């Protein structure tokens, strides 16, 4: 009788050990899960100090004709003239040719930071609005464009198409995109002269008056 009861109690203890192990692992996973719920992965930078970054702008020289035309064809279709300026070969400002710009060094000037991509459809309607606002406010506000998941040739063809004259760069590896927790392109951040995020706009800004209001608010701050 004693012989048979001893292994049974040992077996029971082993069973409890396993149960305890499963319970511990389960509790740890549950803790991680709750931590995850309380710290969602994509909390957009909506206020406070804007994350600092440096960007190196695209080459401002237009792409060679042999590259530009097929790229425009691919991005906008055969009748790309519908979107683009008449002279797509016009060089963009040399002052922003492969220059490195650091956000924190722009303190004192409000910044409009736009995330875009050459493959993004809704960016097509927004780009002319941004360019004309830049031309209007360039003495008071700095505009910066960062292209997301993009390629040099396509991005430069895009900039030629809209004759974009404010500094634009590739967001290499999506680092700035991740730092701002952007959810998708286009998205625009309005950073005040102190370097704080004053406003943001998710998706394409629909018309010039909304963009104008946002910029006016930024200047008045």
């Amino acid at each position: 009788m004693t012989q048979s009861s001893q292994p049974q109690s040992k077996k029971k203890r082993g069973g409890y050990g396993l149960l305890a192990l499963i319970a511990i692992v389960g509790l740890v996973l549950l803790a991680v899960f709750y931590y995850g719920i309380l710290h969602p992965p994509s909390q957009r930078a909506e206020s406070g100090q804007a994350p600092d970054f440096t960007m190196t702008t695209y080459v401002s020289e237009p792409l060679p004709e042999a590259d530009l035309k097929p790229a425009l064809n691919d991005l906008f279709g055969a009748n790309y003239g519908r979107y683009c300026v008449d002279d797509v070969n016009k060089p963009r400002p040399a002052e922003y040719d492969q220059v490195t710009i650091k956000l924190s060094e722009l303190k004192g000037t409000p910044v409009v930071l736009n995330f875009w991509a050459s493959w993004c459809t809704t960016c097509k309607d927004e780009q002319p609005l941004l360019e004309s606002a830049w031309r209007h406010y360039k003495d008071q506000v700095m505009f910066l464009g960062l292209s997301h998941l993009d390629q040099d040739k396509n991005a430069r063809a895009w900039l030629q198409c809209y004759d974009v004259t404010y500094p634009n760069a590739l967001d290499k590896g999506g680092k700035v995109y991740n730092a701002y927790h952007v959810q998708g392109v286009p998205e625009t951040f309005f950073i005040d002269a102190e370097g704080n995020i004053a406003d943001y706009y998710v998706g394409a800004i629909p018309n010039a008056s909304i963009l104008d209001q946002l910029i006016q608010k930024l200047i008045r701050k």
Partner: protein
Amino acid sequence: MKKSLLIAFILLILLTGAALAQGSDPNNPHDLTPEQQALAKEIQMELWCPICQGVRLDVCEQKVCQQMRDMIDEMLKEGKTKQEIIDEFVDQYGVVILGEPPKEGVNLMAWLMPAALVLAGLGFAFWMSKKWTQQKPPAEIAVTDGGPPSSVSDGAEADFSAEDEDYLARVERELAEDL
């Protein structure tokens, strides 16, 4: 008759010419060699659409994916190796194209779950091995202490509990009744 045949022949030649002039194969717009095509497909199957959820690059229909596939073809034509191409993509697009979830929020589960399962598996294996090694000694004791094989069966019988004995008795009784 001869004339119509001739016209048909000329038409056929013209149409074939027109078909050839259509340009490159839509499945191979960059005129890759069959080896390069196979490699391009292989790379596409290792990368993921950066703006979708769990869509592989080779089956993704987004514009961003089309641009990525074009870039792969162009880099292959430049003579770059598979690893060089993947490295360049990670550098330019980020690790998102490797299909890795960011190490934050609920996504942390994806990183911790495998480790937890491995730990649980090891724990289970350890527990099982302990159980097995613990079970052996009584049998060995029975063999070495019992001497002749007959005592082994005695030892085995001794393991029967009262319940088992009742059951055996019932089976024997019922068998006897049937006979």
